[in-house]
């Protein structure tokens, strides 16, 4: 939850030596706490969170068992199958970009989602950050509720609206704009709309917590120096909120890239994204090693995005 405290505690203000003394005492008090306390959490996540990831790394180098699961023979087929398909007759490998295309499609969906969420989310977050504290609280609550609401149900809500018998088509038919329903469900448009709807709050909240700390004296100074509103926005406000923009983009991009529920419901199994593709290998596909390999390739993409984030934010810290 991003309801950062507004005012620093009065204790952080005393003269330096006194502050240092307080800090030393605090550290001493803290040192008494036992580091072993973190063990239960680490053990649970270690066994049921980290170990499974190691297992799928191993599985991705095994052979698929006929009815799901794996056989313990080493093989790199899963990775080869990602790009190639073995010809049944002459056993040569043929380049089959089917999976690659699904990855690229998902990437495109995630990029478009991130950009549109940013274009809508930034003004929203800025507007929220410039309200009075009481109004701000309401806005934050109103954005926080969809953030934590059931994604399946929210996606269902979109489905009800864009179905052939949905409200949009009903309204257009009643108004006589169209004479037969426009098919929107189970199209790329539906998936894109669903992703936007799902992840918009993920953009607004980090942007808000960054913009909330914006020092408006800098904005005032820019106006004093005859900057226009547009210049203030592009040369002062946006550069200052860069950490929030990066955090928001990442929080939208990563889950959008691995989205599962949205394409499952709004794509109808026709328009796949990476998430459905992976799940399929564990269901009807019965090819667990391939699914594991696909999951790891997705993980690699996520790590690249995270690396980009860490590099950018640590660079920011060096500048102060």
């Amino acid at each position: 939850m991003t309801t950062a405290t507004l005012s620093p505690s009065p204790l952080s203000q005393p003269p330096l030596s006194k502050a240092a003394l307080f800090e030393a005492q605090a550290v001493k008090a803290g040192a008494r706490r036992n580091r072993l306390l973190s063990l239960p959490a680490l053990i649970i996540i270690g066994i049921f969170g980290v170990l499974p990831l190691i297992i799928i790394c191993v599985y991705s180098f095994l052979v698929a068992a006929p009815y799901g699961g794996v056989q313990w023979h080493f093989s790199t087929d899963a990775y080869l199958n990602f790009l190639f398909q073995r010809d049944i007759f002459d056993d040569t490998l043929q380049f089959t970009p089917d999976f690659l295309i699904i990855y690229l499609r998902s990437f495109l969906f995630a990029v478009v989602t991130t950009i549109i969420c940013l274009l809508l989310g930034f003004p929203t977050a800025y507007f929220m950050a410039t309200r009075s504290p009481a109004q701000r609280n309401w806005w934050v609550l109103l954005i926080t509720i969809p953030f934590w609401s059931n994604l399946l149900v929210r996606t269902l809500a979109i489905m009800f609206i864009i179905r052939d018998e949905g409200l949009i088509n009903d309204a257009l038919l009643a108004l006589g704009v169209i004479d037969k329903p426009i098919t929107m469900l189970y199209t790329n448009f539906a998936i894109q709309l669903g992703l936007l709807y799902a992840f918009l709050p993920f953009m607004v909240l980090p942007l808000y917590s960054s913009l909330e700390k914006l020092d408006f004296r800098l904005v005032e100074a820019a106006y004093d120096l005859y900057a226009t509103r547009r210049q203030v926005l592009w040369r002062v406000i946006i550069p200052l909120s860069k950490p929030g923009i990066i955090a928001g983009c990442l929080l939208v991009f990563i889950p959008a890239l691995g989205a599962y529920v949205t394409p499952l419901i709004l794509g109808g199994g026709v328009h796949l994204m990476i998430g459905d593709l992976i799940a399929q290998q564990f269901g009807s596909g019965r090819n667990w090693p391939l699914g594991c390999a696909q999951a790891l390739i997705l993980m690699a993409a996520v790590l690249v995005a995270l690396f980009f984030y860490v590099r950018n934010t640590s660079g920011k810290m060096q500048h102060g």
Partner: protein
Amino acid sequence: MAEPRVMDIKDQPGFRSIAIICLLVLYIPVLILMIFSFNSGSLVTHWEGVTLNWYGSAFLNEEFHSAAKNTLIISVTATIVSTICATLAAIGMTRVKPWRGLAAAFMVINLPLMVPEIITAVATLSFFALIAGTFGLNFGIGNLIFAHTVFCIPFAYMPIRARLEDMDLTLEYAAADLYATPWNAFKRITLPLLVPGIMSGAALAFIVSFDDFTITQLVAGPGQTTLPLYIWNQIRRPMTPEINAISTILLLVSILFVSVSFLIARRRAK
């Protein structure tokens, strides 16, 4: 001119409209879904009149009962276990003398937040399949409880850690000065101050567990249907407004817990 031009330096043109549009876009579909749960017709989109029948039929539905029971067993257990673990971990890891492996431990705690849900889902599925195949171990619904506990821990951890970081640790020092044993200082000083963070964390853990679909769907065995899975099963049949009614109940539970967590956090900020 003596009078300065009248303008709010914080304003940017058009931002208000975009903010309001965002709010409408976020709420209208969900509100429509909720309104249609009161539809007396049997179609999910054509309005015929007001009724509460769909809530009645949902509450009388055996499948709904067992799904609700499973959901509560899983999310209450996962919430309790994850909140206890997260509280202990936060105490052991926040504002302490840096210990070897602290950074790594922090990464492990936050790992479930960084890994896309679908990967966690298939990894957990593979894990339970492996231990079932090799050791014949199957915890039944415990499988889901363990899986949920893992991703609940970081959500419970965040507000507790934030609370600890805001806390005035000199109070503990004062207690120690007055000859309180470490356990007494913890019980009488630290823990009471930490309660809002723990409650806020528990509320978040409960929501993410209660709402989880992806991981549950892949890991759940037969007879382990939870409410989100029940909704998913209903989507694939001819739909009646009963699904709207159940969805509305789920949304109201989320809204209740988010608001509780939010109010606790806001009181803390004051």
